């Protein structure tokens, strides 16, 4: 049998498993740190975006629109190829974390903002009447309730974030997709390479997506 999925091609894949393991480890690290950054940006800007300060709200709006309405590929290209011309040479790991973190941070902030808006205004007013400041009311009264609404879509953002780290393959990122491209374009065993790579992404994304669905069911958002 000689086709894209011939047996000896699978054997070669098993022999070179460390190439894929290295990429997988890199994908997981970039995803994890990128997710922390996205969460931090999301919560901070989500709170500011739903606040009363018009100027700050507009700044957040600009950021969210600029990021959401340009492709991630261009943002990563800018970080990788553009910044060096301005004298800033970020290491590839930082390009990856900043790329997906800033991109998904924008989406996360919208999710957080929607969650905050879903909490009845009376909650904030009640907190004020008890002497809470804006920030402590947010932290102790509003955000815990918003969390329930925002959690499932945030988890979905995490899944997208993991998949989007594959964009780094275009800038020699060293993560899973890059390793798969590199390995399979040399020997042209692309069949096993991309099936295995797909399964590895599935192995981390499917549990997360399932978890998101469970959360949705629990909050009663699920249809």
């Amino acid at each position, binding site marked *: 049998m*000689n086709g894209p999925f011939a047996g000896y091609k699978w054997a070669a894949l098993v022999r070179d498993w460390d190439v894929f393991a290295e990429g997988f480890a890199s994908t997981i690290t970039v995803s994890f740190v990128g997710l922390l950054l996205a969460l931090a940006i999301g919560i901070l800007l989500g709170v500011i975006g739903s606040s009363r300060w018009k100027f700050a709200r507009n700044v957040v709006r600009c950021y969210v629109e600029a990021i959401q309405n340009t492709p991630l590929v261009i943002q990563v290209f800018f970080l*990788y190829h*553009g910044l060096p011309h301005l004298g800033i040479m970020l290491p590839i790991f930082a390009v990856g974390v900043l790329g997906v973190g800033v991109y998904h941070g924008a989406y996360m902030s919208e999710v957080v903002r929607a969650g905050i808006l879903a909490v009845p205004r009376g909650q904030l007013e009640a907190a004020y009447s008890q002497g809470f400041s804006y920030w402590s009311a947010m932290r102790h009264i509003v955000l815990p309730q918003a969390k329930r609404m925002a959690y499932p879509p945030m988890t979905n953002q995490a899944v997208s974030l993991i998949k989007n780290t594959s964009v780094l393959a275009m800038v020699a990122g060293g993560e899973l997709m890059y390793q798969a*491209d590199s390995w399979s374009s040399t020997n042209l065993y692309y069949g096993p390479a991309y099936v295995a790579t797909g399964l590895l992404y599935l192995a981390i994304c499917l549990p997360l997506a399932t978890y998101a669905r469970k959360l949705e069911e629990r909050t009663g958002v699920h249809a």
Partner: protein
Amino acid sequence: MKKVSAYLVCVLMVLGLILSAGCGSSQQAQGAKGESPELKAIKDRGVVKVGVKVDVPKFGFKDPQTNKIDGMEIDLARAIAKKVLGDPNKVEVQGVTAKTRGPLLDNGEIDLVIATFTITEERKQSYNFSEPYFTDGVGMMVKKSAGIQSLADMNGKKIGVAQSATSRKALQEAADKAGVKVQFLEFGTYPEIKTALDSGRVDVFSVDGSILSGYLDDSTTILNDRFAPQQYGVASKKANTALAKAVDDTIAEMKKNGELDKLIQKWGIK
């Protein structure tokens, strides 16, 4: 239980897909041994579909002004069409990259790949390769300002290579011999490597020498070193042995009557 069985169904579907794809190609392989339906299919269609490069000046290059793809490898495709179909104009060319040329051959979208495709033992397992029609060495381009004269100056430098990457192996061996430590970054297309060289992400742009010359500009220079001769061959689907033979005959003929040399001269390839 219900969930477990749902997952099982998913897994089985994926496996089925893989297996059916594998079986499909093996059936075609058996058919080819008889009366070569592949070659007949090309004759019935009346046109040979060839995958060529569109970003390698002199070999296969799409002129942005005229939108025409031209080059030495397109002329070679015409010669093969003349042999197989009796008319050099019965060629349909399509741009391919290092990443797409294998899959496009496998799924029958194209019949031949003539796209600076280096012959390797590993690749010969998957595809038929003709005898080489051109031999080239791996070359290196650096920024003039970098002060790099040869491989010996490249300790700790980053070398940008294309994902088809026979140049990577060749350079790694040469670097090991010279006791120089280098790091490789792979990119999907040649322009991307040039962009990386410009932005300083890589210190060296290394691909086959003849390809490199198309990217030379005022700020860069090509080093004199050449490594590991790369032999370009015309690739066809493994099952399509009849076409492979016709291609081989054409190239052998062109070598003998001097037409291949004329072609190389016509395009000014060193």
